[in-house]
């Protein structure tokens, strides 16, 4: 098992999009400080698909939010495209997909997707063009005029992905986007997400609780452990980029899944 340090040095050859060094984050709560992240070091190269996996409360969401400048670290350094997260956000570096679809109920699907476009000042014709484009990308053509409640949970989640894609950010951050969906829908969306990633060459940060999902999607799997949240293993996947669903039965796939499981277990042992 290669140690985290050596696998990170491999990444640094690629152009680094997200780079975290010695990142600490402590929340000040009424019950005293809660350390959500401790000494997090990670390099994410351009075009990588990185999954974050770990037990509940290990700081996955927090780390994603730090990248998106929704939280600010209390120690260490993080750069996105060589800028601070705040600067990167102003330059529209990322689209963020929350765990809940979070579509605005008073807007149609189309208008929901237009929300970031309106805010960023795209003209009307360009807005229409992009909406059409991303609706096609997430396989929701014909649903643009519907309101969110008229769509199933999975369709809403795809609409929220379309919204994050609409302004064509280089980095897509997704926090358990398929967490609430059933296995079959999830498989389908995973396939679609991989195709989309292959087509658009975006850098994706993806939080999940599912080992098969992490292994199936990722070029890199970051295993985290709780109290305080830290990275215990970074696994480079050597699976081919072209991944049919049945790749999940191959020995290569199972070997990686096994290593992720070991990493998760090790994190717990350390904790006890």
């Amino acid at each position, binding site marked *: 098992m290669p140690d985290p340090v050596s696998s990170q040095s491999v990444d640094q050859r690629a152009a680094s999009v997200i780079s975290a060094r010695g990142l600490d984050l402590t929340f000040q709560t009424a019950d005293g400080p809660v350390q959500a992240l401790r000494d997090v070091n990670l390099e994410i190269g351009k075009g990588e698909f990185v999954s974050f996996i770990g037990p509940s409360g290990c700081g996955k969401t927090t780390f994603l939010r730090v990248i*998106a*400048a*929704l939280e600010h670290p209390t120690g260490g350094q993080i750069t996105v495209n060589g800028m601070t997260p705040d600067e990167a*956000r*102003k330059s*529209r570096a*990322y*689209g*963020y997909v*929350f765990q*809940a679809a*979070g579509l*605005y*109920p*008073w*807007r*149609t699907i189309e208008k929901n997707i237009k*929300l*970031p476009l*309106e*805010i*960023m000042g795209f003209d009307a014709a360009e807005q229409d063009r992009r909406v059409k484009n991303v609706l096609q990308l997430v396989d929701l053509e014909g*649903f643009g005029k*519907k*309101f*969110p*409640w*008229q*769509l*199933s949970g999975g*369709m809403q989640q795809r609409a929220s992905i379309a919204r994050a894609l609409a*302004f064509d950010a280089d980095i897509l951050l997704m926090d358990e986007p398929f967490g609430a969906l059933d296995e079959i829908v999830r498989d389908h969306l995973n396939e679609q997400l991989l195709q989309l990633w292959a087509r658009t060459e975006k850098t994706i940060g993806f939080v999940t609780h599912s080992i098969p999902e992490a292994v199936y999607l990722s070029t890199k799997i970051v295993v985290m452990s709780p109290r305080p949240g830290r990275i215990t293993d970074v696994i480079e996947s050597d699976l081919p980029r072209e991944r049919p669903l049945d790749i999940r039965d191959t020995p290569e796939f199972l070997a990686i899944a096994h290593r992720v499981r070991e990493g998760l277990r090790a994190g717990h042992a350390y904790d006890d």
Partner: protein
Amino acid sequence: MSDATVPAMFGPKSAARWVGAVSGAVLPVMAVVAAIVAIWYGGSVMMNRAWTLDQIERRGLEMTAMEIVADAMNQERPVLPTPHQVFAELWDTTVVEPVMRERRGTLQGNPRNLLFHAYHTLWPTILGFGVGTFLGILLAVGIVHSRAMDMSVMPWAIASQTIPILAIAPIIVVVVSNLPALNNAVDQGWISEDTKLLVPKALISSYLSFFPVVVGMVAGLRSPQVSDLDLMRTYSASRGQTFWKLRLPASVPFLFTSLKVSIAAALVGTIVAELPTGARFGLGARLLTGSYYGQTIQIWSALFMAAICAAALVILLGALEKIVLKRMGVRP
């Protein structure tokens, strides 16, 4: 992944369901109304009987129990008028009596018609409601966006509502009626004397109606969840954009709820304002003259007209709410 469930909601079955819902609602409503009317008649007879008995004794008349009841139900100045008396009066003063009448060569509103008075009350009510709503929304926007305003305005807004309006209404009326600017406007012929009387009414009406709007709108503008606000942050949206695209639409259902409370308060405000103005027109004036002359039937019919106005305004707002929320895609 089909949307077949959506059109199905508007199928032919919905008509039958609608009828069912109405008859389901009508029966209990009828029962309640019947009970109220019965209690009302009972109360009228009990309270008016004393006068009838008194008359019998003074004039040495002989009356059967049935005749006593009949008399108690049809007195000219009863303590508690009966429903049929009130509705006869309502009918006479709205339908029988002409709305306009010829006076000094011109056609004018007829003060014997209750609709004329309702008009004189409704107009300042709507004006005051409009001003109050506008101010309420403005204050709420300020409160939500500025911590200083949140700390300073809210206590004052609450305090303003603890002052008994009946106590300060005369003060407001006197002060406003003597405003030089207002008198000047009358002298210059810009506004009529009647319009001048409208100002203090609308002012007191807005004073009562702004508060529910402030409370409702503050709650509404703060109703977006953290995740909805975070989404805006990921787009680096400005405060203005967050307001127009998130806070304001999210507050609409809250706004309509408070508007319905607010319009009723505005109506009460106008009527209260009419009491000390010595106003000749308006439902409040009608209440006042009724009580001067012991015209209880007139008082009750004015009260009913006020209730009808309030109900009409609330129903109107409810219809507007339905239309707006439907356009905003609220699930039917």
